[in-house]
């Protein structure tokens, strides 16, 4: 695989956007005060965009850097494990579905957000070795579906609105 400098630059730009969105997201007050770790996941717009315009390795890289750096900047080191586990699995699902080219972006967002949240629940269950965390699963899945639909819609609009010369080479 030939690595072009344009692609590297765009990956860096998208990673920066994803981190910025993640940090801003952690500054706004939580939507449900009881569950402060439920967040919108706007950074996944950048990951999905990388998956469309750049391809698999760049999107995975974006997701990895986003998970590690947002955790370092905005959260505690424990958060990194959760966001990496969720972020990378959901990025892989996003990449597979995007390359399938059958579903549209909002639905891809819903599916990948659900995978993201389920993976985080699995990690939480493994780390605390309690199965009780799965009683939260319905809240996580419903919220994830709504948030995923939202981020997918943003992706859809970004792809539509952005002139192709900015990301096609």
């Amino acid at each position: 695989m030939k690595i072009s400098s344009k692609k590297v630059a765009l990956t860096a730009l998208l990673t920066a956007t994803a981190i910025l969105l993640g940090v801003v997201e952690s500054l706004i007050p939580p939507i449900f005060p009881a569950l402060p770790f439920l967040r919108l996941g706007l950074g996944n717009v950048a990951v999905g965009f990388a998956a469309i315009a750049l391809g698999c390795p760049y999107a995975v890289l974006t997701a990895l850097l986003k998970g590690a750096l947002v955790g370092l900047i905005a959260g505690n080191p424990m958060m990194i494990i959760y966001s990496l586990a969720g972020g990378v699995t959901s990025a892989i699902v996003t990449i597979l579905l995007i390359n399938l080219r059958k579903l549209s972006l909002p639905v891809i967002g819903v599916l990948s957000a659900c995978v993201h949240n389920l993976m985080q629940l699995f990690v939480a269950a493994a780390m605390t070795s309690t199965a009780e965390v799965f009683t939260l699963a319905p809240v996580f899945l419903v919220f994830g579906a709504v948030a995923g639909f939202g981020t997918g819609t943003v992706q859809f609009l970004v792809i539509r609105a952005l002139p192709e010369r900015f990301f096609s080479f």
Partner: protein
Amino acid sequence: MRSLRSEKNIRHYKSAPYLGIWDFYVLLLIIFLSTIALKYYLAPEEGKFCTVYVAGEEVLELPLSVDTKTEIPGTHALLTISGGGASITENDCPNKICIKTGFVSDAGGVIVCAPNKIVVRISGEKSYVTGVHG
């Protein structure tokens, strides 16, 4: 240096509709699966206690494990507890809605007799309706 796959992706998602036929199928599948999951998640909890209120005051609390027939104090209603559930079997109200409500056994279930201001509530172990039972 054009990567064929991302070029195809860009072209496809540039012109793709907001929701297509496959999305419709997937959303249908999601709704179907979540309905099934919700049915298990919201499976009614078995009632453990029944609490009787008359005019808003708690007058009686009985475990559902013991079969009894009790007259609700201050009224002419007969509360029957049998087989883990409760029902009002006799009353002097005009419409007999409380009797027609029949047998209630799930936690959160209610029997109401409006004319006599009777409310019978079934609560489970973890009831948030009547608080904590000993």
